[in-house]
């Protein structure tokens, strides 16, 4: 009895291994596919390092009706890295035209008698026109220019009252001491490549198993597998295992060959935990891929379904856009996305050095969700064999 049992276990595992090897061989034979995967994990992530979400030398044009020392001092405060002076214009109409064409992002409009009013202690208005057709840039430009002009006004007020650097200690004011944690310089080169890596893991974790399963259906090779002594789980699991292995190797490659050496991303937490979480996430998400595979008869259908699931998942899980700003309903739907938990844990481990004591709730969430998704995907797929 016992002997047959061990023999059965060995047979079960050897079949699983054989099928996994078969999946890997099949993948390796497709050169363009291998190229695409390597490209995604290396060059693609490398390219994202050039991308910034920050105001970078935004062009400011100035209409200065005053031409005084005070107005020049104000203009001079709009300088790199955020702003760049794009020259002075002679009338406002010309400025609007430049803004229309996108030649400038912002126009600073200084009224006549600016210096005169300042010296007299009369309030004066500075007009700022911002192109907000790109909301991010418009928002940043408006916020920075309000800061610059506000500071200028504050300085001017102090100066008028004869307050010097030294007597500043006798003015009641709040000195803002902000400290930015985890990414002190707010370096986009740390943030965007990691987000891209998480995105790529998600794309591959859904598409590769879905494609591998649908392909068998489309080509008819599934019939051969059904008549073989393999159980449905032995057919399915190797696909997931093989693709998970590929994704893990890819993640390691991009972490150790791109993220660390090129972008100097600090890895504060435990790498073992990071890879364990990545494995869990990949398997959980591949359940979605298997589910797609059950719904589609050919790859074209599978690809469209994958996009339908992938895109909302990637964009609404809080990596690219702030989840706090989303409408209530979608914010709740976010908890159904495995990527949401993966993002929490991925950044938590890599940047914040968080361990299981802090991340246990996200891990629990991902495990529960993953179990449901994966079981459901496998169940749907198994049902097809009947």
């Amino acid at each position, binding site marked *: 009895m016992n002997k047959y049992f061990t023999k059965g276990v060995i047979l079960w595992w050897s079949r699983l291994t054989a099928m996994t090897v078969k999946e890997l061989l099949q993948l390796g034979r*497709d050169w*363009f*596919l291998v190229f*695409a995967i390597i*490209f*995604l994990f290396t060059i693609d992530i490398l390219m*994202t390092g050039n991308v*910034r*979400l920050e105001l970078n030398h935004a062009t400011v044009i100035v209409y200065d009706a005053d031409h005084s020392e005070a107005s020049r001092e104000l203009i001079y405060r709009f300088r790199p890295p955020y702003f760049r002076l794009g020259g002075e214009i002679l009338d406002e109409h010309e400025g609007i035209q430049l803004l*229309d064409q*996108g030649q400038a992002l912002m126009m600073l409009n200084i009224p006549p008698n600016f210096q005169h009013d300042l010296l007299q*202690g009369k309030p004066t*208005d*500075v007009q*700022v*026109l*911002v192109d*907000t*057709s*790109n*909301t*991010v840039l*418009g*928002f940043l430009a*408006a*916020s920075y*220019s*309000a800061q610059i002009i*506000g500071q200028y*006004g504050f300085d*001017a007020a*102090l100066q008028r009252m004869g307050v010097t650097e030294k007597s500043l200690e006798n*003015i*009641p*004011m*709040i000195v*803002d001491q*902000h*400290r*930015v944690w*985890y*990414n002190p310089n*707010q370096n986009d080169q740390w*943030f965007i490549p990691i987000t891209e890596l998480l995105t790529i893991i998600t794309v591959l974790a859904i*598409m*590769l198993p879905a*494609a*591998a399963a649908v392909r068998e259906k489309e080509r008819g090779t599934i019939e051969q597998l059904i008549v073989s002594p393999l159980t449905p789980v032995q057919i399915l699991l190797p696909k997931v295992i093989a693709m998970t292995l590929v994704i893990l190797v890819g993640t390691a490659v991009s972490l150790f060959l791109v993220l660390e050496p090129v972008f100097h991303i600090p890895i504060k937490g435990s790498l073992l935990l990071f890879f364990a979480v990545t494995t869990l996430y990949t398997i959980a998400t591949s359940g979605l891929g298997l589910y797609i595979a059950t719904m589609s008869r*050919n*790859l*074209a*259908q599978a690809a469209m379904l994958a996009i339908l699931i992938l*895109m*909302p998942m990637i*964009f*609404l899980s809080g990596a690219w*856009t*702030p989840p706090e700003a989303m*409408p209530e309903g979608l914010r709740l739907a976010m908890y159904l996305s495995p990527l949401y938990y993966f993002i929490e844990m991925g950044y938590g481990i890599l940047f914040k050095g968080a361990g299981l004591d*802090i991340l246990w709730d996200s891990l629990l969430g991902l495990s529960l969700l993953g179990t449901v998704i994966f079981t459901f995907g496998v169940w749907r797929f198994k049902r097809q064999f009947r």
Partner: protein
Amino acid sequence: MNLSRIVAVAYKEWREILRDRLFFSLAFVVPASLMLVFGYGLSLDVEHIPFAVVDHDRSAMSRDYLHRFIDSRYFDYKGHASREAELDSLLADSKVRFAIVIPPNFQKNLLAGRPVAVQSLIDGVFPFRTTASKGYVIAINAAFNGELLANYISQRFGISPEQAMALAQPVSVQLRYLYNQEVKNVWSMVAALMMFVLMITPPFLTALGIVREKESGSIYNIYASTITRGEFLIGKLAPYVGISVINVLILWIMASWLFGAPFKGDPLFFFFASVIYVICTTGIGLLVSLIVSTQVAAMMLTVVITIVPSVLYSGLLVPIASMDPRAQFEAHLFPAMYYTDIALGSFLKGIGLEQLWGRVLALAIYAVALWILSYLLFHKRPRS
């Protein structure tokens, strides 16, 4: 070029698409639902930043100061902590993204006319959100400082609070937002979303079309027929371009009616520019399908060529103007960026061919180049 042969291929392809009910409906459902979900959900507004407070002073003034954060729609108050050490774990667990620490003797020092340092801790993991949070903190502090200074002046020089206020804040800023007056994210977002959705779905629709024939072997019928390369490619592509043009109209209607985005430009110009753009994106799918020989590879290569550039290099999330020169150069290599300008210009700025002809030309060149490349890559007599 023989028109009837083109029509024959196009008709055959159309029948094949139509026969696959699921695929046919997905061809329209996917773009519309992406528009719907992103139009409502994709927002870059930084609001409701969760934050916590450590107040060592617990005075009337510190409460007044803190209420400026608590009442702001940019911040979501999550409670008081008693010690700084508690903030560490709250920040590490992402329960809060921002924290303020008010020192002891906050009120006493301010009333005595001394400056006080207030510490704020900001989570730096998401740089854009960090920058925005910092901006809000600075703005709230500046307003508070202005009032402190006005009080101080009015007490010291014995003038009325209004006069003191004018002295303390001599320069006011009048911000005027052009093109998108309420800085409504959704308006600029839906215009950019048209670009995004039309960049992703047509290539996927197309890419698998030809590879499927290659993989199933039915392409040999084409090889053996009298049809020329050009005729086959045009006929094959036509139904997909047709589907995508219908999608342009659907998305356009959604943007205007559902999301209320104003359309200020020339509809005819925008329509033709969109058609050229769609020819470009279907052309990308065509090119992919000619390079690879399996559908899986076609799928992954399309991901590489479309999703990544349309996210990063299109101006959807990341403004092109703020990129460094190398990334800007890379952005110019993809057609997405030009169409974003066209869509934003037509929707929000009301500019037309006069200002945007360069962008349209770039798209047209792109379309022609893709076409020529596909023509050269497609052989009726494959090697081996």
